[in-house]
């Protein structure tokens, strides 16, 4: 096993400690321990069906572990009541695999969902929705329904919805899954932009190595408003990797450590 746990100086926004979960059978996740530090982007790699999405749902209490502890913003969420979790979840933003937009609401109402529940005045809602949609370059879709958007546009709206309350932690569940390469690059550039503009810590699940490497080797250029490559050999120091295999965390470290790993599973995955 090639795990070198991070030793952040600051209090982590999310910390898993020996977390195990099973659904009527062998454990889906077993003995998972890792942390997400402030401003850190953690990329969770692993083949399909290995428990990545399950892990993400544990991170904001949508699922509960059988054993171990999970601390979100220094609150134990593994044993907290559902009512106690709602205020904590409002401090996180989650982008679901297929977007999970409310299909009976317009894009505006989807993005503004939390603000509408909090009874924020309409004028402020409109301004904040426009700002969030501008961030994902979909300002013109406010009055449309999700059914009339393409898959990539739906993901971008989901990102806008996750960002509107300026979350303290972002959870991305395979944001590029099932998309064509051009649309995937658009989504990844938005994630890079979010990382470099707002510095929100995030946990991103993907099985696409290309997306993971792009996140590490690119930055957002505020002058051109585009994602540009870092100088050759440079990598983003705040972007690190986790790898799951058969329910266990087999890697926790930087891109260099990932590439140098001698773990047979890691080598196979990278090959």
């Amino acid at each position, binding site marked *: 096993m090639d795990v070198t746990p991070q030793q952040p100086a600051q209090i982590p926004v999310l910390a898993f400690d020996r977390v195990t979960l099973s659904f009527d059978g062998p454990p889906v996740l077993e003995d998972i321990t890792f942390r997400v530090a402030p401003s850190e982007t953690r990329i969770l790699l692993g083949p399909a069906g290995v428990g990545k999405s399950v892990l993400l749902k544990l991170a904001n209490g949508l699922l509960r572990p059988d054993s171990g502890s999970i601390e979100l913003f220094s609150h134990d969420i593994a044993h907290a009541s559902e009512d106690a979790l709602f205020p904590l*979840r*409002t401090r996180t933003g989650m982008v*679901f695999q297929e977007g999970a937009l409310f299909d009976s609401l317009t894009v505006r109402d989807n993005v503004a969902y939390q603000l509408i*529940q909090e009874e924020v005045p309409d004028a402020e809602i409109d301004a904040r929705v426009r700002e969030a949609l501008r961030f994902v370059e979909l300002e013109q879709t406010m009055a449309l329904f999700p059914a009339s958007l393409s898959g990539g546009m739906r993901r971008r709206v989901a990102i806008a919805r996750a960002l509107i309350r300026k979350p303290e932690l972002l*959870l991305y569940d395979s944001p590029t899954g099932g998309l064509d390469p051009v649309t995937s690059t658009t989504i990844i550039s938005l994630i890079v932009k979010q990382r470099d503009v707002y510095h929100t810590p995030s946990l991103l699940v993907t099985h696409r190595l290309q997306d993971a490497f792009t996140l590490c080797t690119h930055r957002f250029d505020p002058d051109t408003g585009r994602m540009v490559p870092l100088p050759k050999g440079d990598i983003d120091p705040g972007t690190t990797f986790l790898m799951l295999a058969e329910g266990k965390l087999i890697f926790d470290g930087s891109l260099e450590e990932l590439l140098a790993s001698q773990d047979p599973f890691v080598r196979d995955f990278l090959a």
Partner: protein
Amino acid sequence: MALDTLERTAKQIVLTVQDYSVFASRAFLNLFRPPIYWTDFLVQSDIIGVGSLSIVVLSGMSTGGVLALQSATTLANFGATAITGEFVSLTMIRELGPVLTGVMVSGRNASSMASELGSMVVTEQIDAMRALGVDPIRKLVTPRIFASIAMLFFLTIVADAFGIVGGGLVTVFMNHQNGTQYLNMAWEHIRFPDIVQGLVKPLFFGYILGSIGCFYGLRTTGGTEGVGRSTIRAVVNSSVLIIFVDFLISHLILELFAGWM
């Protein structure tokens, strides 16, 4: 082997009843703790109440008419055709009004709730709602249950009224009896326990159809096929439970008001 299957099924039933009890009581108690989503309550009241009005009017009127039609021959054998009004009004108010309305509205709305919430589960919209810090039980379930209770109460009154009107129309135009006599008999023999029985039942039936529709909707697994299964379970179980609870309430009220009846 057979014993194992029996044990597993029994455990499954007990677990389902336990989950339903926790779910239904949580949804009920939400009405007394903020936030309360009044807008959702009004929207659901419109869907359940106004949306079900036509089927309730039609089924109520037809049932009243059929009661008058079927009773005419039997009552004529005893020379008691004069009590057709009493027979129709008491049957409608005590039994058929609440039960028929409950079953009809359950067929229309418990199925709609189960399929709507089930679709939201399989497309992760319920998880998205939770992730956005909104309690789906408070936001989706509680307004539906209370809208079902409130609307079933009024729909039952509508069904009773149209049932008596339907019975009256058949009595006058098909059985060629006296309309004034029908109405007098229908009105004079209604007692307080009949009204209590007729108006207490829809409160329970509304709670049953709303909570069961939402319960099976939120338990949906297995994609779109699972949505279909949840819808069937919601309609079948709510209809059966309505008829069973009708028996219990009838028995209880007959015991309570033994001296009045």
